[in-house]
């Protein structure tokens, strides 16, 4: 449904995204994950036709954003990062206005309005001015604005940022309820959001894509290395050196007395680690294994990338 083809975008001399490509299949919810400044918003603005890419192209439902921007824009409902709206308008007038500008025919506008108000649970605020609404309702109005013309594609830039947990839950439910019906790209830097709502994830860092996979796979494939967490009393430098001597051990990190030890997949070195610690006269207080969460994968990908850059 959406095809991003070697997109590069510069702001003056600064490279915001460099040569990124990925595809989103019809009906898929794709999580676009990256830390601040990674280039999420920039990519989304290219997809929506807000500005053209410096290089590369984007296709939405087969239409090129460069050659047929209006056709592309017709396919997309967009919720920008900090939803701006005409604060002087009442919710109902605002949605009507956006619907009409987006080209919803007069005959179907009423029906679309009712559907959108119901879907986004806006009934209680239809007569309030948009500027007076709470953050959560504003976000829902922004979603309503995106949905008013029934677009097959939704682009949501950090749709849950700045909301309280209850509102976050509601917005996520709403997004999930549209799975299969619409193709959705949602950006976030919150990991659980991806595992909770998305079927596929693209991780972007410093303007480049570092991973593309299904949410499940990404978790699995990076559990190449199991981790063991220990709490040991003693001088950390010596303990670390001792641990590293064991065959099959990867990185060893510590925060105070808490150590994280990575080991190769399919090797259970827990007993060896325990022995090594105790035999060298350190006091082992705790030992437990843990597999990598999506969060670890994300941090690993992003920091590895940075280390690679510095090298």
């Amino acid at each position, binding site marked *: 449904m959406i095809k991003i083809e070697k997109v590069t975008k510069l702001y003056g001399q600064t490279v915001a995204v460099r040569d990124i490509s990925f595809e989103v299949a019809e009906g898929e919810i794709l999580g676009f994950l990256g830390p601040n400044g990674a280039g999420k918003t920039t990519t989304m603005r290219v997809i929506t036709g807000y500005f053209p890419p410096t290089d590369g192209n984007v296709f939405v439902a087969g239409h090129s954003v460069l050659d047929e921007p209006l056709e592309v*824009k017709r396919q*997309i409902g967009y919720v920008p990062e900090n939803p701006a709206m005409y604060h*002087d308008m009442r919710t109902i007038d605002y949605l009507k206005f*956006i619907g009409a500008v987006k080209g919803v025919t007069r005959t179907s506008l009423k029906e679309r309005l009712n559907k959108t108000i119901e879907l986004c649970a806006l009934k209680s605020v239809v007569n309030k001015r948009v500027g007076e609404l709470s953050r959560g309702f504003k976000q829902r109005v922004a979603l309503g604005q995106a949905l008013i013309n029934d677009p097959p594609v939704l682009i949501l830039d950090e749709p849950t940022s700045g909301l309280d947990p209850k509102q976050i839950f509601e917005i996520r439910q709403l997004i999930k309820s549209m799975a299969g019906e619409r193709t959705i790209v949602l950006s976030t830097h919150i990991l659980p959001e991806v595992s909770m709502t998305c079927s596929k994830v693209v991780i972007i860092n410093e303007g480049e894509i570092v991973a593309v996979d299904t949410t499940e796979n990404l978790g699995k494939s990076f559990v190449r290395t199991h981790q063991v967490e220990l709490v040991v009393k003693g001088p950390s430098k010596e303990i670390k050196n001792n641990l590293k001597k064991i065959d099959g051990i990867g990185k060893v990190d510590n925060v105070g007395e808490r150590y994280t030890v990575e080991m190769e997949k399919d090797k259970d070195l827990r007993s060896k680690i325990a022995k090594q610690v105790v035999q060298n006269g350190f006091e082992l207080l705790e030992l437990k294994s843990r597999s990598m969460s999506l969060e670890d994968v994300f941090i690993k990908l992003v920091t590895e990338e940075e280390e690679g850059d510095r090298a």
Partner: protein
Amino acid sequence: MRNIAEIYKREIRFYFATPIAYVVIIIFTIIFGFFFYRSLVYYSELSYQLMQNAYYAQRIDLIMGVFSPVFSNNAIIFLMVIPPISMRLIAEEKKSGTIELLFTFPIKDIHIVLGKWLAASTIIVLMLVLTLPAPFMAFKFAGAAEWGPVLAGYLGMLLMGLSFLSLGILISALSENQIVSIIVSYGVLLAFWFLGWIIDPGSGKTIGKVLGELSIIGHLSNFVKGMIDTKDIIYFVLFIFMSLFLTLRVLESKRWRG
């Protein structure tokens, strides 16, 4: 077309939902009314004195005696009241970020600009329409109607007002700040005003002539006297067209740069 109409309706609603339109229209009408009243009083005193002298009585008519000075003053009022109308048109959307929405909707930039331009134009037309009782009163007072030259004056007013507005939109597109937008508008409009005064166009120097041709006020003088010259019409139409064209270019280039 529907896009333009929707943008237009929103802008009109905004103007009348806030005090802007009322304030501008009331101030304009009061000042216009004051100038008109002064001119009419002056004219009546003059014509009373001139009753005795048939030769002078013919020389001085309503156009030269009343409307020409009123229209000339009106140009200055327009210069004061149009930037407050135009300053927000694009600057506000840039500041609030709603321009991002408009740019991602399936509409063209030109629809956005035209919708806004037409809405602000409506206010200008409305201001002029509200002054129409003036010529009716004057004609009644003088006992004779001479609509042609007065309508020529109105046409000049309208074209000049739309020119101010178009330049105002261009400046609004260049800025995110409405205060900057209005101050720059005043500055640029005054500069266009004074262009003709830098070097006397009658001095014979080419540069003086060129500057005179570029100045707004120079192209108003014929209209005000009741004469329609195609050259003047072309000047104002080009002025409007160029301003709107540049506005579109500014919007485009801002987006390319991000």
